[in-house]
């Protein structure tokens, strides 16, 4: 069945193979053995470890198996069936290619190989201890191969000493098995540690496999991506920004099926998130990168974790633009999920943690299904009502005419109208609702347009499938941030000139900074003129700046800018835009009336990223009606 028998590579080829340590710890044994099983065409793999692999590791597969001669040869250095020529080395399609793994393992452990091809009567058993002469015998078994590795490094005390605790070694083994589980959803993978099943995965579509391995809730935070350009194709998932993780743990790139670590590639994805992520958090992504094996070299490092791309730039660009688009286009509204024992902000901020020994025996019978329907809902059904029902120019927002401009001072900032005093209208008792034009010019003032303000902080609105919660401050921040960036980008700006120019005296350092930033402030729409030592006069502000605090806003922006600059000295304008939006936005505690809330939401959903504020905080949350039903015990 094996297309080729194992041959020892001639020196001139063997010398081309990146040399070095192959086996560092139990996890590397596990990895090598599973990869061999996969290369042998297995569709069922069983991994059994004891004491985190320190005591024993056993990998059983239903792959091709080997005949007797091959079984013995496989333990020789540079003995491989996977390549035979230099050209083969240039276009590797299998995990293995060095013929090193088994030899390296056999040199430092007690190894038993039991293998049978389908066409053979009996299985060959080869036992090797510490690289000794193999003992060969025969036994019965199903077609396939079992490799048992015991007492790793028993003969290399220096190495054995450096093994970590069983728990730590288990973690490493777990990571390896998990990566393979994620990269090969079509393989049944059963993983047992110390007589306990860690997971038992049945072949499944990718997303199902992710759910089985990572948990269903993690998958709600994933955006599917797929793209093919020229020689490169990418598919997989990227995590919504609000689902950022505390470490780089959740970053998977599978190059032609092989897990690799490549800083450039990771950076392409990571940088596309930009400010969407909190400081210190990292995006989750799992991407299958497929390209012609000739266009990439995996023979870089003995760990086979690295790869060299012929055209790294185009891969970078592809991943970067793909990620950007995915982040911008999809509704990244995190759903609030309610768990037994109380409400927790669902998957928002929930970190991907790998739990040891506690995975549900996944793989079978989950109720979970591909959330395609949900995404369609999210993209159209749930969010769009806001956008489509009100149109870009909200009838309420554009009401400069008598009776509409009623409202708080915030009207000026949200609606661009000067604030009018509230509560003095005809017959008004100041009771909410009595002065508000209800429904106004909205085309369809149906149930979907209900809107409330909660504690002067959050805007609640009914949406098609539940409740949408918007944080008013960060929402407005996002709106102002994008407007600020647009001003930088287009030089289209305007300045509301002030009747009473504001004189601002600054500490020397701030004055110097402001002087340096003056052109940028100008582009934002400020009209600031130096006025003697350490003093400037503010003669105009952007039309959406907070009226009345023109001096304060400049001072506060400088302070905040200083802070941002510490973390990211390169992006001057982004930092300035962030400072501006933060300081100019309405605050928690500002009371909004209905037209103001609607206008804010319209403006928010007209931005390119309505779900995450410039600092990475979520802007919107959604509680589905199902969650509420579940919470109220209304299970249908």
């Amino acid at each position, binding site marked *: 069945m094996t297309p080729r028998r194992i041959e020892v590579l001639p020196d001139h080829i063997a010398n081309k193979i990146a040399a070095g340590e192959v086996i560092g710890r139990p996890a590397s044994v596990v990895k090598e053995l599973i990869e061999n099983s996969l290369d042998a065409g297995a569709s069922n793999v069983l991994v059994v470890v004891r004491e985190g692999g320190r005591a024993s590791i056993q990998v059983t597969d239903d792959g091709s198996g080997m005949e007797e001669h091959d079984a013995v040869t496989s333990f020789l250095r540079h003995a491989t069936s996977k390549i035979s020529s230099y050209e083969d080395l240039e276009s590797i399609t299998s995990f293995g290619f060095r013929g090193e793994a088994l030899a390296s393992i056999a040199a430092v452990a007690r190894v038993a190989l039991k293998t049978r091809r389908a066409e053979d009567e009996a299985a060959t058993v080869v036992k090797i201890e510490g690289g000794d002469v193999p003992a060969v015998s025969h036994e019965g078994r199903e077609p396939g191969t079992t490799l048992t590795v015991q007492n790793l490094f028993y003969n290399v005390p220096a190495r054995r000493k450096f093994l970590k605790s069983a728990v730590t070694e288990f973690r490493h083994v777990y990571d390896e098995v998990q990566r393979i589980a994620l990269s090969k959803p079509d393989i049944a993978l059963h993983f047992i540690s110390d007589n306990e099943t860690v997971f038992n995965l049945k072949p499944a579509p990718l997303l199902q496999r992710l759910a089985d391995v990572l948990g269903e809730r993690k998958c709600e935070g994933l955006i599917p991506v797929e793209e093919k350009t020229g020689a490169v194709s990418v598919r997989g998932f990227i995590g919504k920004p609000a689902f950022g993780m505390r470490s780089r743990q959740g970053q998977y790139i599978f190059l032609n099926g092989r897990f690799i670590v490549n800083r450039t590639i990771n950076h392409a994805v990571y940088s596309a998130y930009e400010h969407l992520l909190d400081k210190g958090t990292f995006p989750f992504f799992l991407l299958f990168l497929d390209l012609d094996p000739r266009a990439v070299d995996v023979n870089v490092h003995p760990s086979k974790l690295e790869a060299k791309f012929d055209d790294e730039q185009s891969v970078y660009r592809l991943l970067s633009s793909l990620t950007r688009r995915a982040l911008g286009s999809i509704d990244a509204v995190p759903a609030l999920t309610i768990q037994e024992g109380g409400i927790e902000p669902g998957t928002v901020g929930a970190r991907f943690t790998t739990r040891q020994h506690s995975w549900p025996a996944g793989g079978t019978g989950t109720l979970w299904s591909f959330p395609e329907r949900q995404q369609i809902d999210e993209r159209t059904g749930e969010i769009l009502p806001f956008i489509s029902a009100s149109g*870009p*120019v*909200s009838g309420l*927002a*554009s009401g*400069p*005419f*008598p009776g509409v*401009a009623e409202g*708080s*001072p915030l*009207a*000026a900032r*949200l*609606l*661009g*109208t*000067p*604030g*009018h*005093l509230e*509560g*003095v*209208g*005809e*017959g*008004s*008792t*100041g*009771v*909410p609702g009595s002065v508000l034009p209800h429904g106004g010019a909205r085309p369809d003032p149906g149930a979907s347009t209900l809107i409330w303000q909660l504690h002067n902080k959050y805007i609640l609105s009914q949406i098609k499938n539940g409740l949408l919660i918007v944080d008013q401050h960060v929402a407005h921040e996002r709106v102002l941030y994008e407007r600020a960036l647009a001003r930088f980008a*287009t*030089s*289209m*700006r*305007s*300045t*509301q*000139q*002030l*009747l*009473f120019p504001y004189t601002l005296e600054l500490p020397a350092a701030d004055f110097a900074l402001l002087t340096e930033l003056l052109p940028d402030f100008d582009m934002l729409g400020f*009209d600031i003129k130096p006025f003697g030592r350490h003093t400037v006069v503010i*003669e*105009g502000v952007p*039309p*959406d700046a907070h*009226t*009345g*605090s023109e001096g*304060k806003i400049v001072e506060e922006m400088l302070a905040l800018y200083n802070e941002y600059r510490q973390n990211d000295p390169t992006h001057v304008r982004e930092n300035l835009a962030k400072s501006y939006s933060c300081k100019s936005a309405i605050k928690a505690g500002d009371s909004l009336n209905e037209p103001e809330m609607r*206008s804010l939401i319209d*403006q928010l959903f*007209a931005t390119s990223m309505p779900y995450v504020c410039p600092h990475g905080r979520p802007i919107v949350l959604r509680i589905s009606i199902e969650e509420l039903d579940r919470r109220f015990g209304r299970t249908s």
Partner: protein
Amino acid sequence: MKFTANSIELQRTLNKVGGVVPSKSTMPILENILCELSNNLLTITATDMAISLTVSLQVRGTEDGRVAIPAKRLMDTMKSLPDTSTVFTIDTTTNKIKITTENGEYGLTGEAAGDFPPVPPFKGTSELTMDSNIFRGIIHKTAFAVSTDELRPAMMGVLFQAKDTELRAVSTDGHRLVKLSYRQQKPVSMKKDVVIPAKALLILGKSIDEGDITISISETHVKFTYGPSFLVSRLIDEPYPNYETVIPAENDKQMTVKRDEMISSIRRVALYASATTHQIRFDITKAALQITAQDIDFGGEAKEKIPCTYTGDTLEIGFNSVYLIDILSHLESEQVMFRFSTPTRAGIVSPVGGESDSILMLVMPVRLST
């Protein structure tokens, strides 16, 4: 306590004080109105602690007494009744109020009159009396331009100044300004400048009737007395910005337009302006004013031309259309004159021909860059 009143008359009276009643207050008692009956006079007081308004109404009194009645419930009841007579029977020990009409009977629970904060004692000094209609006009033309920003408390009120025989009222929000001068025969007897909260003025504007209004001022408060009603408001104790220095003297580019025509034109064009900035642009030439708007964010543009007479060099200047409409619609004359200097300096707007009082408005432009 017992009296009979007509539902419509009572509703009309309640409407005058309704604007004072706070909707949300840390003091729930303020959501009530104080009703006091003495013979046939029912006196109603509402306060939000900064402003208190007392109005009164002739009713058929049976038994004197005082009680605080929930304002909203009472107003809603009166509003939904037909023109009918209502009998109020109040037990002033339990504060249970019973309203009997031909339709039926309604019971509500009030609060003890003693719990209602008393109107602060007022020791007025200077007094000024004028026709209510004139004063209502002053309010109408100034109060709209105040700031609603609590960061600038002085601008939340209207400045009243006496200059010999002239009573001057000034309001601004930092982007526009109104200066109104009312001249009378004898000198205006007001010893100091006062800043009166616009909210008090707007409430006053809704409740003054025909006749005279008398304004008294104390250290901290102002009192308006008109007929049997009076309103007491706290003064804003903050220095008013030096408005005189910002009124330009050298604006020599004069444009005269028909007011109505301009308002309608701006309204139409502004529909196409950005919904958040409301920016419009004037291109002024000898014979015509071109008004344009463009909404960069969502697309859309509009352009109109109206005739004008103009004496300067061609000028391009931007404005927030809301400010312009506000200003123009608070003037009365058929024609208005704009005086400009540069595209970043204040424009002056004033009526052409006779308005009863002399008025000048300023509007700051929006500097446009393209």
